[in-house]
């Protein structure tokens, strides 16, 4: 009984801010008052609030760009990582383990160690504040995890599949595209979702490598709404923006929960 009571009390404390978030995101933008923040307003102004946020922080172009980054980069990374995993495991690349360690080793660098050179090189190469530049960097940071998961996955696939396809005269690339990629569907999806979420929520690369609102990732742009012009942003507008912008990752995760669990139980087909 004590266990339930502790959980309930703690749970109620945790629900407090969540409740405030929802109630005040639905409140009309100009009617927020800290002394009455707990009382629901009965209005459903969240869409107007979100529209206001889009206008104020110029979120439209930013949202489109973020969607582009978080779809294209993980898709590329997953393909590149899968091809590397396939080459190392199935095609038995000489020194494959070391190539794998080289690729996977990319995960250990803190982002802070990358920013200055990336910023300087991007500025020189015309990639600073550009969508291709952002896609490139997001793809690169996503490759190591993709290579790791897909390498593990392909290790569990029977080699006889490959041999049979070779007997039938298929090229190695064709075997990869027609057999191994479809087999790895759920692992590819799981990695894609993880990386989609990472990129969708990224703040730091956006801060360091972009400037204009159409190129800036949405979290960076939203942070600007908080830090640069917060004085003028009504609380309900900020809350609506925070809530709506968080939805895609939640929706994606819920929609693919089963796929996700399957994809991460690595190595099993």
């Amino acid at each position, binding site marked *: 009984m004590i266990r339930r009571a502790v959980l309930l009390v703690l749970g109620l404390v*945790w629900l407090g801010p969540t409740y405030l978030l929802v109630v005040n995101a639905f409140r009309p933008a100009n009617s927020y008052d800290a002394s009455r923040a707990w009382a629901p307003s009965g209005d459903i102004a969240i869409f107007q609030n979100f529209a206001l946020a889009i206008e104020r922080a110029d979120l439209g172009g930013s949202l489109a760009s973020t969607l582009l980054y978080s779809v294209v980069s993980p898709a590329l990374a997953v393909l590149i990582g899968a091809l590397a995993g396939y080459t190392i495991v199935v095609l038995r690349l000489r020194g494959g383990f070391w190539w794998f360690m080289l690729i996977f080793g990319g995960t250990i660098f803190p982002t802070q160690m990358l920013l200055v050179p990336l910023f300087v090189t991007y500025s020189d190469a015309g990639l600073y504040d550009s969508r291709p530049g952002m896609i*490139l960097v997001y793809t690169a940071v996503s490759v190591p995890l993709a290579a790791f998961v897909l390498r593990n996955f392909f290790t569990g696939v029977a080699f006889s599949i490959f041999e049979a396809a070779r007997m039938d005269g298929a090229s190695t690339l064709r075997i990869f595209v027609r057999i191994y990629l479809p087999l790895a569907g759920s692992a590819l999806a799981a990695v894609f979702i993880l990386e989609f979420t990472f990129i969708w929520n990224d703040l730091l690369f956006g801060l360091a490598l972009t400037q204009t609102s159409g190129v800036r990732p949405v979290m960076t742009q939203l942070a600007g709404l908080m830090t640069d012009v917060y004085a003028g942003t009504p609380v309900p507008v900020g809350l609506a923006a925070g809530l709506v912008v968080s939805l895609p990752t939640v929706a994606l995760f819920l929609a693919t929960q089963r796929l996700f669990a399957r994809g991460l139980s690595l190595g099993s087909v």
Partner: protein
Amino acid sequence: MTLQLERAPGRAGGARRPRRAPLHGRLRPGYVAPAVLLVAALLYAPFLWTVYLSFTSYDGLAPPAFAGLRNFGELLEDPALLTSIRNTLIWVAGTMVLPVGLGLLVAVLSYDLPRGAWYRLPFMLPYALSGAGLAMVWSPILSHDGIANRLLGVDTAFLQEEPHNTLAMLLVWTWQQLGVNTLLFVVGLQSIPKEPIEAARLDGASGWSLFRHVIWPLMAPLTAVVVGLALVASLKTFDIVWVMTQGGPGRNSETLAVTMYRETFVASQYGYGSAVAVLLTVVAGLASYLYLRGQVRTA
């Protein structure tokens, strides 16, 4: 590329395989090239370059001038950096106690309850919010005439004065991160074997002693992973501080990661900023190493 075909017989399950692996086409070393090139150009090269820059004086305009250890010497005497190190330590210690420790508590209390998932739902909801969303939720609560002050009947400048602005942000962080730690612990608790627990129950163990002497040792490997992940992540705390206080006011809530960003992109001290990044990396590496070594010893 000078890679060659591997002709040795393969490993896994290949008893009946021909001694020579079949030729798989000439292109195959090229297949790892995209991954290797991306990682080399955008992760390894910048990493090494930052290490070099940390020994230079560089403002991004004039070419970097070699400065030996001067940046690191300045680091040690910079009061802002000392504050930043102190705050980072608060983040690390606080993360162990609150999101991780409290997460463990919630997991242990709820994992074998009927409908335990419902008890855990309130803790999972905040995890959906990202750093920016988190700041949206908590700024009106923690602001001067905000909800927390009204609720508590006090007048505290939660986000202004040190060190309790760091502590306030730590609580916000706990609010967001507790759920995912709980979830990891629950997965671990549900997958430990039932027999030793049943046996201990029959022997009369219950409550704290059951947990301390039976459950805790059984879940040690998982705890090691959760703590290790939280340790490294908390050393690199950036997003929440940047969106809530930008390290201020007067740089008093900066962490190492925020200091690095500010020195580099606000003050244009690229060499000095790189030195902070190197310091952060060394500290994170050292902490991971000591932690892993401790784990291996106790295991």
